[in-house]
């Protein structure tokens, strides 16, 4: 068993190295470039391409479908989306109808897009600030029961949302008298549900900041607030960025919280809720569903690809440690 000692080494390396170094440097530093394992055989290449194809075709199919005329999608003359490449019939009309057409029957997506944006931006900001404050205290504060409390927060991640919805809704409407049909309920609910994961991810990152840095600042007379705003936050930008993307995607793509707290009015309901409505009912406008789905997907997809790098780093900061 020639490889056994190597395995022990690998274990030591995994446990011993502080994560920031591993996660970030491994990706950036050419020194760490690995020797090519010979696993990349023709078989592996073929398997990878097949997986890639299977993973892409469903989305691609819908994408093509979204540009096909109504008669080609539903009704007696309809056929599969792949036929579009033979009949060559493409149109932008679906997108125009889905976003801009007036009337209560039309999807009216542009309005819901604005709602989604108005929900997601404040929530992301709230979670980032509140979670980083709490994470800082959990990582560097000094009080009894710190570890126990942190593990409790970690455990809160698993409280099923469904469990929290009814009591929270009662609280909002009966105790706090928050007006229905405003963003406030959605902002607060989403912020609450985002905090446990946010605190957990940021704590993993913030606790890896070298203690000497903070100690040095303290010797220079800096208080907690100064250390937090001037040292902790700037050093945590990668983790903050990844949490921001997480939170953005999570809130943008949410349906359940929206169903319960938006009151279903076009004034505040996000685009996912509208998409669920129009795709959940069969009707004369079924041909708009693919275009509507793509309108709802395009913004998170753009954010995601633009900031992919941070996303992955943040996942790793949470991942390898937790």
């Amino acid at each position, binding site marked *: 068993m020639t490889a056994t000692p*190597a395995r022990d080494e690998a274990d030591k*390396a995994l446990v011993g190295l502080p994560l920031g170094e591993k996660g970030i440097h491994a990706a950036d530093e050419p020194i760490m470039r690995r020797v090519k394992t010979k696993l990349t055989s023709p078989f592996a290449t073929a398997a990878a391409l097949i997986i890639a194809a299977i993973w892409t075709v469903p*989305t691609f199919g819908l994408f093509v479908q979204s540009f096909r005329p109504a008669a080609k999608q539903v009704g007696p003359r309809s056929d599969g989306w792949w036929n579009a490449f033979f009949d060559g019939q493409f149109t932008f009309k679906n997108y125009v109808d889905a976003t801009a057409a007036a009337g209560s029957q039309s999807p009216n997506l542009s309005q819901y897009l604005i*709602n989604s944006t108005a929900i997601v931006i404040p929530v992301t900001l709230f979670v980032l600030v509140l979670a980083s404050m709490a994470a800082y205290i959990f990582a560097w504060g000094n*009080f009894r029961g710190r570890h126990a409390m942190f*593990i409790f927060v970690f455990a809160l991640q698993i409280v*099923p949302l469904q469990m929290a919805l009814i009591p929270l809704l009662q609280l909002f409407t009966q105790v706090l008298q928050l007006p229905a049909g405003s963003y406030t309920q959605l902002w607060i609910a989403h912020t609450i549900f985002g905090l446990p994961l946010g605190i957990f991810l940021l704590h993993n990152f913030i606790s890896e900041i070298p203690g000497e840095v903070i100690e040095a600042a303290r010797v220079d007379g800096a208080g907690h607030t100064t250390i937090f705003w001037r040292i902790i936050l700037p050093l945590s930008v990668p983790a903050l960025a990844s949490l921001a993307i997480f939170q953005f995607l999570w809130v943008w793509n949410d349906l*359940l919280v929206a169903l319960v707290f938006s009151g279903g009015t076009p004034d505040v309901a996000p685009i996912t809720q509208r998409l669920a409505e129009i795709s959940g009912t069969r009707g004369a406008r079924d041909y708009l569903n693919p275009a509507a789905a793509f309108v709802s997907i395009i913004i998170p997809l753009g954010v995601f690809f633009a900031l992919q790098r941070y996303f992955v780093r943040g996942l790793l900061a949470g991942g390898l440690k937790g």
Partner: protein
Amino acid sequence: MEFVGGKLLQVGIAIAAFAAVIGLIMLLVDRAPKSTRDKVTVIGFLAPAAILMIVGLVYPAVQTSYLAFTDAKGTPNGVDNFVWMFTQPEAVITLRNTVIWTVLVPLLSTVFGLAYAVFIDKARGERILKALVFMPMAISFVGAGVIWKLVYDFRGAGIEQTGVLNALRVAVGMDPKQFLLDAPENTIFLIIVMVWIQTGFAMVILSAAIKGVPVELVEAARLDGANPWQQFRNVTIPGIRGSLVVVLTTITIATLKVFDIVRTMTAGNFETSVVANEMYTQAFRADEPGRGAALALVLFLLVLPIVVYNARVLRQQREIR
């Protein structure tokens, strides 16, 4: 575009109010007398998040735990809801489906994710190949529902098929199939959607973990005569064990809570319901909050071992440091 202005204003006011609250906390912490400053800091930094989580998560969880032992009118009825859950055929199917989901989704996503990560490691166009599989992560469950409904689309035999899978079936001479209606295999077709979404997550984490395995180890194993499979089995896998555990537990928790996919694709009909969906149905549709709460409690108990395990790992890491 009048309504846009109004909405912008609301957002602006909310952010300003939030900034004012945070500013006030910072001011109070800074001005606190030296003797109590540490305490005030802890309270000031922790209180906003703590209050929100207590109100929005802890209190509801406690209340739901109590509700689980009451009937539709709110009077305590002992363990009746749990008896119902484990005896009614539909409820038992729900539990069975949940078990199938929580076994298959983490397993398949991790296997596909790991295989793909290994196959494309150092390949040409690695970034693009990664992005293709990663992309579903950014798509909402509702959007995924629309995408996969088209894949599974069914038309009667003899009519032009619009779904890829049924078109393929017809092309090879089989009858078209009602993928989402035919129980029990329709659960598998819903699971495929979740695997499609989660594989990218597994792949990205495991890919980065693989790159973190020191070059020297792999090289040493190779020089010792290990073939690629042995290198993978004896060097790479142990090197990424921590990440594997994280991936499996994260996906398991996500799967236990899965709701949107079932909701948008079958609404839990045709024997496809899972605990998280049944909970919503019982509590919000059937006016049986007690039963819904009991299901929520069972879900919580199912996830608990995973959390205990993770908490132990957390503690061990602290001791190492």
